[in-house]
């Protein structure tokens, strides 16, 4: 229930898929409107959602931290941690892309995990938990509005 795993076969070599996954100009075609990524382990980045999908509040920046950047095999980052906090195992989601060559094609595997690890100590006040859930809900709502629109137009 709390890990998302997906695989897709792409009729293009790995270096092309790698470019689509990591090049900000390409990311804007399938994910956020704008992206900045320091493509090395520990490197910081930001996905910017909006303003089209969120005209009331303006663009929403969502921070990420690169966990792995091994072209053309593996790209992983953590995100969805509370704004202003460091991404840790217990406060963020881990997105891992694995690219496997199949002849001239690429099998792309996605795993998003961390739904189980995200933890709050019992002392954490309930309003803190609610605030966190609120922020998460907001950006997921933004993503929902965005993804189908983009994939339909590409």
């Amino acid at each position, binding site marked *: 229930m709390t890990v998302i795993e997906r695989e897709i076969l792409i009729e293009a070599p790995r270096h092309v*898929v790698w*470019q689509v996954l990591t090049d900000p100009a390409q990311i804007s*075609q*399938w994910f956020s409107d704008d992206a900045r990524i320091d493509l090395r382990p520990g490197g910081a980045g930001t996905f910017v959602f909006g303003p089209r999908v969120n005209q009331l509040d303006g663009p929403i920046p969502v921070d990420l931290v690169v966990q792995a950047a091994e072209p053309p095999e593996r790209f992983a980052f953590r995100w969805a941690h509370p704004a202003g906090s460091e991404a840790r195992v217990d406060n963020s989601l881990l997105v891992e892309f694995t690219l496997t060559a199949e002849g001239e094609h690429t099998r792309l595997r*996605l795993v998003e995990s961390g*739904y*189980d690890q995200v933890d709050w100590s019992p002392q954490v006040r309930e309003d803190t*938990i609610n605030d966190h*859930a609120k922020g998460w*809900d907001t950006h997921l709502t933004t993503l929902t509005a965005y993804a189908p629109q983009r994939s339909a137009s590409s």
Partner: protein
Amino acid sequence: MTDRSDDEELWAAIAEPGRRRLLDILLSGGPATATALAADLPFTRQAVAKHLAVLERAGLVEGHRHGREVRYAVRPERLDVAARAMAAVAARWDSRLQAIKRLAESIHRAANQP
């Protein structure tokens, strides 16, 4: 209560691993009291009672008085809502992966044009 705050309460309730363990035990073992649940988990009875209160407010469990204690049972229809929310997250990844596939394949085709 609006749908929105309703959803937030549901997400906050299931986002905590301890509460998910409680739900798992209630699902596999059937209705139980806070005392019985505390015996199965590395939590104090007081911590279990607090988690149950959050789950009850989110509508995920329902308490019924049984003698001197309250027995809690999962409300499966609310759990379905949570499962559907998770499925919606997965569906978003599906459409992103489809977009990645289309982009990569069109770049590749363009590069191979004679």
